[in-house]
């Protein structure tokens, strides 16, 4: 291989885009230093180590292709099929560990690019065969259509909105004599709602939600509220136990404190051995 051609195939920093080149004569597309070059020096695209970051950034193959065209000046129609395929396979490998359903869509897109490329290598069919649309036109249209809505979404995100830019002005109601009627709820409704959400969780992910015994959960809330309501920063450990609750009550409180500790929500503080133990809200 001629060293000149070699160096052109791997241009140093910015990718030279040899656009609009159609391979009419199949093999020779340019002569550099008297040597025929049959592969385009279009190198992709994304440094491999940035792959993982990028994956999170893209909303799918259309988004990725738009980026490659707009930012990296990739001429998608000149892509080397082998290279695209290799890169897409890398994506798919990564996605395998992340979100499987995306992979298929990237795969379809890689196949489409390969199809476009292979058609361009074949002899051009006579023109008015309008039974089937040129896949390039189709792809470009889809990319353009996607780009419109991608931009529209960005604009919607910029609109002033409640909770971030718009704040409603309220005044408290006077004493109305009647209580503002609140919706009635049957406990069963709450439970059915819970059942359905748990059901959904199981449908989407394998691990199910783990729940502590409810008495412990409830006590965890109480303990936290007490600690946060304490005027000083520290709450004496023994002060949390209500001896009138009996042995069971003490155990529940103890388990609640242990669970809060495990979840990193509180800290236990003791100055020296056998000194009183204090609790406080966890600080980082």
């Amino acid at each position, binding site marked *: 291989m001629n060293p000149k051609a070699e160096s052109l195939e791997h241009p140093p920093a910015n990718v030279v885009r040899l656009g609009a080149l159609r391979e009419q004569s199949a093999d020779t597309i340019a002569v550099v230093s008297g040597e025929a070059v049959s592969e385009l020096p279009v190198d992709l695209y994304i440094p491999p180590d940035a792959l993982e970051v990028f994956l999170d950034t893209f909303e799918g193959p259309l988004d990725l292709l738009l980026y490659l065209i707009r930012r990296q000046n990739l001429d998608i129609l000149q892509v080397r099929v082998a290279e695209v395929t290799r890169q897409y396979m890398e994506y798919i490998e990564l996605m395998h560990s992340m979100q499987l359903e995306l992979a298929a869509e990237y795969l379809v897109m890689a196949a489409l690019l390969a199809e476009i490329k292979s058609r361009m290598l074949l002899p051009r069919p006579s023109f008015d065969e309008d039974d089937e649309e040129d896949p390039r036109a189709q792809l470009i249209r889809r990319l353009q259509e996607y780009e419109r809505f991608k931009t529209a979404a960005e604009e919607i995100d910029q609109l002033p909105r409640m909770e971030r830019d718009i704040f409603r002005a*309220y005044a408290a109601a006077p004493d109305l004599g009647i209580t*503002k009627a609140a919706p009635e709820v049957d406990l069963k409704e*709450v439970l059915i709602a819970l059942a359905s959400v748990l059901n959904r969780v199981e449908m989407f992910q394998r691990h199910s939600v783990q729940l502590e015994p409810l008495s412990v959960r409830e006590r965890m809330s109480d303990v936290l509220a007490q600690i946060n309501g304490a005027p000083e920063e520290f709450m004496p450990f023994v002060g949390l136990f209500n001896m009138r609750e009996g042995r069971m009550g003490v155990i529940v409180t103890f388990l609640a404190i242990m669970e809060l500790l495990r979840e990193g929500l509180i800290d236990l503080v003791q100055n020296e051995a056998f000194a009183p133990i204090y609790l406080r809200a966890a600080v980082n």
Partner: protein
Amino acid sequence: MLERNNIKQIVEAALLCADQPLSLDQIVAVFADDECDRVIIREVIDEIERECEGRGYELKRVASGFRFQVRQSLAPWMSRMWQERPPRYTRALLETLALIAYKQPVTRGDIEQVRGVSVGSNIIRTLIERDWIRVVGFREVPGRPAMYGTSKAFLDYFGLKALDELPPLPEIKALLEPIEAELAGAGPEYAPPLVSFEVDDEADIEDAVADAVDEHGAIDVLPVSGTERGS
């Protein structure tokens, strides 16, 4: 230092968008250090109070601070706004409540993670106003999200002495089965209720449909002529 008039606008706005009375300290905290001082804020509050004269609301001083409140004399009209049948709670609210009950103490983020859906702040506000949940602390992570737990009022409303009187999970799952069976068994035979309405003028159709949608949720429109029914 901000202009006095600007300070007044900000104090007024802060009092109007807070969902609780604001103490003087809380109002001061809305400003950056060099933007104004306590003395001016005090003066501005007095001004705001005076300016409410003749309006439908007044600035009230309550134990925990200042808040705007509609004048007591207007109560008869205000109560007309709430005489309608109370709306029903959404599924999202009930799921959120259930998750708080069973997983407390939890943050909004925890709930969102389980539900896979973002939880609107209005849901949390409604539950707090109803006094069914309360903030029991803050998680010491960036953003210091509030952690919620259920309240005594929650137990009282549902007639429970303690939280562990709620049924354990396996029983809850069993609750869902008859409903699913019903849905599955209904199969292709399931027929949505028919809503019919007549219109004389074609131009009225849209209005009629819009009304029906308001009342029944989504509807299909089937063509019907005379007394015949389309399939």
